């Protein structure tokens, strides 16, 4: 847990690493290459990098045209402008024709920090999840981000990746296995399941420690793929622990909590407490302070876990 690396960094480095062997993919960015970290690819493979300028709508449809001609395309911007501004281009130009475009959205969530509400996208997972056929993933560390890019290059079809700005601890070692749509059980437990994604996985592990001290054994899941959700694992958690808490750096509507609830309601109803931003916009501040302010803290997760257990 020594190193701190942002998931965007893992993404940027992975593009260069896999770009060496896979000569067929191209990368687009909308004047944010330094921030999204596509800058590494830009420097390594200048002839395969195309800046679209500050024009995200055009970028997404250009990506569609490239993909229609057989290219695998990574199109990168901040989550706000990728999923937000260009939503309809993604829907009609990319998702509807099922084109092989990988939308790499960075600076998602509250952890953008000081830039504040206009840049803290808390709706992107909901937006992307409603698009038929769209795969939606968010890594919990830079290692997982790398695996995702590797998996993306082997997968045909539209995908949305949610990366973070903030440098966070590396949790996985390079040899752990990874599969799209298969959640990772990080800690076994029997009383409650904490299903988290992205930077909230670390908080979930901390919460499990707090609960452990109270004699409550929480299972912790890293649900890196939000769509298609790991239905089997969610149901296993419902059946074996009888209560679930979800944690995400996203509005409580439309994201991981919704995805988990849909599965649970459909097949094996148990209490589900959804932790996320509670239908609010973000605000400027340090990421750690914002997590506290919006209830994305280990303490709050532990409290909600106890609430969920009471409802069993």
């Amino acid at each position, binding site marked *: 847990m020594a190193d701190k690396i942002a998931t965007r960094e893992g993404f940027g480095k992975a593009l260069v690493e896999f770009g060496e062997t896979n000569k067929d993919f*191209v990368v687009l960015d909308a004047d944010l290459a330094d921030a999204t970290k596509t800058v590494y690819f830009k420097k390594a493979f200048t*002839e*395969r990098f*195309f800046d*679209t*300028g500050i*024009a995200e*709508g*055009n970028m*997404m*449809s*250009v*990506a*569609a*045209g*490239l*993909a*229609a*001609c*057989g*290219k695998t395309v990574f199109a990168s911007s901040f989550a706000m402008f990728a999923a937000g501004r260009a939503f*309809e*281009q993604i829907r*009609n*130009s990319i998702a*509807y*024709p*099922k084109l092989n475009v990988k939308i790499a959205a960075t600076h998602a969530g509250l952890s953008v920090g000081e830039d504040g509400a206009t840049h803290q996208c808390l709706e992107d997972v909901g937006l992307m999840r409603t698009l038929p056929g769209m795969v939606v993933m968010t890594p919990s560390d830079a290692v997982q981000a790398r695996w995702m890019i590797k998996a993306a290059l082997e997968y045909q079809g539209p995908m949305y990746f949610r990366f973070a700005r903030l440098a966070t601890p590396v949790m996985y070692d390079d040899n752990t296995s990874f599969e799209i749509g298969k959640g990772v059980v990080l800690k076994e437990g029997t009383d409650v399941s904490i299903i988290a994604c992205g930077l909230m996985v670390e908080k979930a592990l901390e919460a499990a420690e707090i609960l452990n001290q109270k004699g409550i054994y929480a299972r912790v899941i890293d649900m890196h793929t939000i769509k298609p959700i790991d239905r089997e694992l969610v149901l296993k958690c419902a059946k074996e622990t009888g209560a679930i808490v979800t944690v995400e750096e996203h509005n409580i509507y439309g994201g991981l909590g919704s995805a988990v609830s849909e599965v649970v309601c459909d097949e094996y109803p148990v209490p589900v407490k959804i932790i996320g931003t509670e239908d609010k916009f973000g605000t400027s501040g340090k990421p750690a302070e914002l997590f506290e302010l919006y209830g994305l803290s280990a303490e709050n997760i532990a409290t909600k876990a106890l609430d969920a257990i009471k409802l069993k």
Partner: protein
Amino acid sequence: MNTQEINKLKLVAYKIRKDIIVEVFNAASGHPGGSLSIADILSVLYFKEMNIDPKNPQNPDRDRLVLSKGHCAPALYGALAERGYFPVEDLVTLRKTDSYLEGHPDMKGIPGVDMSSGSLGQGISAANGMALAGKIDKKDYMVYTILGDGEIEEGQVWEAAMYAAHYKLDNLVAFVDVNGLQIDGPTKEVMSAEPIDKKFEAFGFNVYIIDAHDIEQISEAVQKAKNKNGKPTAIICKSTKGKGVSFMENVGSWHGKGPNKEEADAAIAELDAKIKELEEKVNG
């Protein structure tokens, strides 16, 4: 071009026009006005200028067309059917639940459709992507796109225009169908984009202003674009919305509705007369 060649392409254009009426009548909906105005452009592209093969619609070296004004699908489907991509008889199924002929172009289900389109402003960007792919792969195919004069009010069109010039996409040709009418009224009253030629010129395009219903002018403009001088080309086409059906010409309400039986019969009678006249000319 000789007269015979011109008449042959005119004939195709009128067959496409008849197809359009048949389609929107059977669908009892759709967009005849703007479809009729681009029939000559599609005739010249699909029957003369484009390097395509209906038997091999996915050939990676083919020229491509993106109908950015996707609501004019009836015209595109007419052209593709006449060219042999699918049976002309299927055109009556336009917009039906069990038909592959979607209300707007669908690249996954319709042979010959190079890009799904219909949400205005996105087609020219997708055409950019295709043109860029051609440059990356060092292929010499051309990419054509057709925009409406109402459509160019979308900001994305100008993002795309900037992009095409910046990346020197001289394999891109953007037709702008200037028929002067959009849903809410004349473009000059709703939202004027004039001067359209000057705007594209300022964005770095070669610009040609032509009569959208003059086969020779359409062909000549495309020929000039094919010279590829490092700049994308915009062909500003002065057209008549509803062209070829007298009671639809320049009447805004024919933008987005199908004719009733009586109207369809009248339109087809008028187009049949024109087709007969052209067939006689072509066949001597």
